[in-house]
């Protein structure tokens, strides 16, 4: 009896938040893709293949997780791929010259972070739209990397360093642990800190955010620096996995990272999305490409399929959100 009276005065049970519903849809989509692939291909469900998918998804996710924060503020960072290339080349050089992987890792992270900070300065102090600032930065970084490398390839790193990208721990690839760690950190940062809340507020309405007392410029600097640092992290994993670095390694990274963010349900208009959604986005993207490989579909079809998935995901997202309103 007491239970009933309690129910009567309790506020109506709160529904799942919009974000949670959108993430749920995406998980469902990922599972559906898995089910289809499991039926179509014998090798899909093998442990080796699943670990391979996770490892590939992790690379996209590292870049895309930082990018998610930028997109949440209604910005865009087009320089992440070029940033990975420059950071990898510089980190690789430091390891070659000093023989110290630790120093190399620090340099790579710092390089990425500084580039991100410069993006942030252009967006806040110079008020250049992020799309243009980071697009210009992309060319600048490419130019620097090509000049610095002068056509050379860095090759051969210490075995310990190579473990980061290709090693295993208790049967799981090390990048998968890193993925889980950064998925946790990213989600906590976005959902459970006041900086995260402020980032959502800035994306939803930057003018109102400023007039609500949020230090908008400082938060934007932070967000671009984080995006750059995550590119730095990706560069380390890239370097250690490929065991080499060239000037052009970044060129195929930016667009898939943006695709993961969009498939993950983060709105380019800002204020809506989650880091976890981006993880699912990276997973869906990798699963589809992996499935196409397993089914011996020519790699030439991959860009087309990626494009269709992005458009489909955003369209479904808009449809379901509009209905919820």
């Amino acid at each position: 009896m007491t239970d009933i009276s309690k129910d009567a005065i309790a506020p109506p049970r709160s529904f799942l938040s919009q974000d949670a519903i959108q993430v749920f849809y995406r998980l469902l989509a990922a599972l559906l893709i898995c089910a289809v692939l499991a039926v179509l291909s014998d090798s899909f469900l093998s442990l080796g293949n699943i670990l391979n998918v996770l490892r590939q998804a992790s690379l996209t996710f590292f870049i895309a997780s930082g990018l998610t924060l930028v997109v949440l503020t209604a910005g865009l960072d087009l320089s992440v791929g070029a940033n990975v290339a420059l950071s990898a080349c510089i980190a690789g050089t430091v390891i070659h010259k000093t023989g110290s992987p630790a120093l190399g890792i620090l340099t790579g992270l710092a390089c990425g972070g500084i580039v991100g900070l410069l993006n942030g300065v252009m967006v806040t102090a110079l008020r250049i739209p992020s799309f243009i600032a980071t697009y210009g930065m992309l060319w600048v970084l490419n130019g620097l990397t090509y000049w610095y490398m002068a056509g050379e390839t860095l090759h051969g790193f210490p075995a310990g360093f190579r473990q980061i990208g290709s090693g295993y721990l208790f049967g799981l690839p090390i990048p998968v642990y890193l993925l889980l760690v950064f998925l946790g950190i990213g989600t906590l940062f976005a959902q459970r800190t006041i900086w995260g809340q402020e980032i959502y507020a800035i994306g939803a309405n930057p003018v109102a955010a400023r007039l609500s007392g949020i230090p908008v410029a400082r938060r934007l600097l932070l967000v671009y620096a984080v995006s750059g640092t995550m590119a730095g992290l990706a560069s380390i994993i890239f370097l250690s996995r490929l065991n080499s670095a060239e000037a052009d390694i970044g060129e195929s990274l930016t667009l898939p990272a943006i695709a993961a963010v969009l498939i993950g349900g983060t709105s380019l208009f800002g204020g809506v999305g989650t880091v976890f959604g981006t993880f699912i986005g990276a997973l869906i993207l990798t699963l589809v490409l992996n499935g196409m490989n397993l089914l011996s579909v020519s790699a030439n079809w991959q860009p087309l399929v990626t494009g269709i998935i992005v458009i489909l995901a955003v369209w479904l997202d808009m449809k379901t959100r509009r209905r919820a309103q």
Partner: protein
Amino acid sequence: MSTAALAVEPAAPTPLLELRGISKEFPGVKALDDVSFAVFPGEVHMLLGENGAGKSSLMKVLCGAYRADAGEFYYGGKTVAINSAADAQKLGIAVIFQEFSLVPHLDIAQNIFLGREPKGRIPGTIDRRKILADAARVLGTIGFDIDPSTIVDKLGVAQQQMVEIAKAISQNARILVMDEPTAALSDRETELLFALIARLKADGVSIVYISHRMAEVFALGDRITVLRDGRRIDGVRPADVTPDQLVRMMVGRNVDMTYPRNFADKPGEVLLEVKGLSATTGISDISIEVRRGEIVGLCGLVGSGRSEVARAIFGADPVSSGEIIFDGKPMSGEPDLAARRGIALIPESRKSEGLALLRSVGDNLVVSALRKLFPSGLFDQRRAQRTSDGLIRQLRIATPGARQTVGLLSGGNQQKVVIGKWLAAGSKLFIFDEPTRGIDIGAKSEIFALIDRLVAEGAAALMISSEQVEICHVCDRAYVMREGRIAGHLARNELTEENIVRLGMHHA
């Protein structure tokens, strides 16, 4: 109310347009419930109601933007259908919305004849001479003396409104629906608009006029229809009612329009002191003082620099010279600093500057208090929820819950959310910029009661308002601005509408 009650005057001519039993439902809301409404030729029909009463929905049904779920339309006594904007236009119904639908970078003539341009001799061209001549003729009929080749972007709000009216007239509009047309006009511009309305009436054009201002209702209206909660409450003539009676009809309860205040005998210590403040936004040599326990008015014409003073104090615009001393210590910096020191700004345009419309009520309520509520930097959803639930109860914000999207609330409730976020932040000085704009009367008195309570508890308020009645009733004293400067100061016993107007007028 039966439709029979509609015929206020038994010998009245056939209505030009009559709506019977209109209903319109949205998921969860009955926006219009069996509403009947008639417009006679050449009358000004005032449409009254609080925000959310159904005025906008009725207007949208009239102009074909919404399709009524049930109900009948009669035009000159004959059944018609209004299912689309084209239907409404054919019947001569035109709406002047608060947000104009003009193309800013085209000129007046192009805007008036947009999509109906006279064709030139070469196919695909426009007869420039004819369009200008036609536009000049239309502008002439409404007595608006301006070069039709002026780019719309260069026009003030009042002039753009004139262009909208000219556009409607050029489409042979017989019924002109105007949504709070004086909301953004100065007194002088309002007079011009009223003169135009008289002229249109004389030509037999009917006007449906939505307003929140009592004075206009009695000055202009031939008849008044009051809506509340989607229902038609009554149709009356201005001569037969008092403002108080109208307010009761709108609100459904007694509301005190005098905004009673407990004026403090002795104001407290000085909280804000501004000395010789100038900024590139057009204000110069501003010196004002606000004490704890006071509501200080900041009046003057629109454009006299009132909002710019508020923004400069809050750090939203850079200051070029002068001093701001808050709570005994000098202050300079961005809004985040001002907010942390205890200053709150409730901006004039709450939708674009006060709220993140797509976010929830709860998100908006805690956004300024994040640092105070979570000093560790770790955000706790349950704590945030408790805080916003408390504010929703305290401010009586009408919302299904803290998760509701704030953009779906009515204007008055949105304003309460903006105020609420600063209550959560524990602000000491509240700067209100037009706090009651677009807010219905019930919510207005609630907001004034709230401000009164705030200052009684030791906070202070600086209140910008174009409603001189409100300033006179609510403020302890007031500064009057003119052309970016303080033109004068009015103590409580000098605070009259005449004095405010006298000080604020240009003496060119």
